[in-house]
């Protein structure tokens, strides 16, 4: 009886602890990479915007395979007047968005994911609406790696990233 209880407790613990571990990220295909740099950008995307809506966020995963940290400091795109790097935080029930004046660090050998609810590239003063299905050129500027050309895939306004295993079972909406 006691042995059974113990086995159940240990097994239960193992299952619960296993459930807390984030599943490994699937291998992402087709990264944009500069010829001589260790920075790679995967899955750059943005959301469709309405006529007269002059700002939008862009999201992506940035990997740094080099031995030195790098920083994403800004960028440019023909569809917007300004490109800024922002972070979003929640304080209680209030959303706060701030520009990262010093850019966003991408650690050596690490990755940073820009996603809804977190870091994002802000496209300010949009010159035209972003339409779902369009591909928008975006040049990202890194302190070390320099300029990196990529193309944003414009998804519907309600698009959300693929299921993030790091949310510990939170069922996030999908666009």
């Amino acid at each position: 009886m006691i042995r059974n209880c113990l086995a159940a407790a240990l097994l239960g613990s193992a299952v619960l602890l296993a459930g807390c571990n984030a599943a490994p990220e699937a291998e992402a295909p087709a990264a944009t990479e500069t010829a001589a740099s260790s920075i790679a950008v995967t899955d750059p995307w943005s959301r469709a915007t309405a006529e007269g809506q002059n700002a939008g966020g862009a999201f992506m995963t940035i990997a740094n395979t080099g031995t030195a940290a790098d920083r994403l400091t800004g960028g440019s795109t023909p569809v917007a007047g300004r490109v800024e790097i922002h972070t979003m935080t929640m304080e209680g029930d209030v959303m706060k968005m701030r520009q990262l004046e010093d850019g966003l660090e991408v650690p050596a050998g690490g990755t940073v994911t820009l996603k809804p609810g977190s870091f994002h590239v802000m496209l300010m003063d949009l010159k035209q609406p972003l339409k779902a299905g369009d591909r928008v050129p975006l040049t990202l500027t890194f302190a070390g790696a320099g300029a990196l050309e990529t193309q944003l895939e414009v998804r519907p306004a309600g698009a959300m990233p693929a299921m993030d295993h790091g949310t510990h079972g939170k069922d996030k909406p999908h666009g």
Partner: protein
Amino acid sequence: MADPFPELEEDVSPQRQAEGLKTLRLALWGVVLLVVSIGLVAMFAPDRTPPASDQAAYADLIGGPFALTAPDGSRVTDQTLKGTPFAIFFGFTRCPDVCPTTLSRMASLRKQLGKDGDKFRIVFVSVDPGYDSPEDIGRYVALFGTPILGLTGTDQEVDAAVKAYRAFYQKVPTTGGDYTIDHTASVYLMDASGKLQSIIAYDETNPSALAKLKRLVG
């Protein structure tokens, strides 16, 4: 499955009492592990739903008179909304993240309600009337593939509505003389009489949000 605790095999020996204590100790450690695991799960999967008693305390504080303008120029007030439950959210069209995420989530939850999905309104109030005209807001809410009533008004009208809901917004200067806006990211669920029924927090799980909407239209 192999017995994971062979040392606990019962043997009738003189050391049986000591064995019993050892078993008890191991069992207690198992319980400690289980409790710690449950604690870890609770830490990593927080449910931010306020307890029912808190909600009852908020209910009389949140909501109240407001008068705003719809994209077609018509006036919408707390009185004109009466008769149908509604989910109301404050934001602005230049919001890159929380607003599109929340509006698309509400659209997706509405679809999950099936035939009950049209039993409540989704209302989006822009707290940026200096930038968002009623027409701009109409075009913005049309992006989300579900009927959303977009509203705004004069600065005073917007402030009055925000105050009625005990919500918060604040313009924050950015580079080049521009600004962004910090704002409450919760969705207020109001019943057909205009009284607060519950609140969906920004990081609330979908099952919990769906349960609240079911109660709203039930």
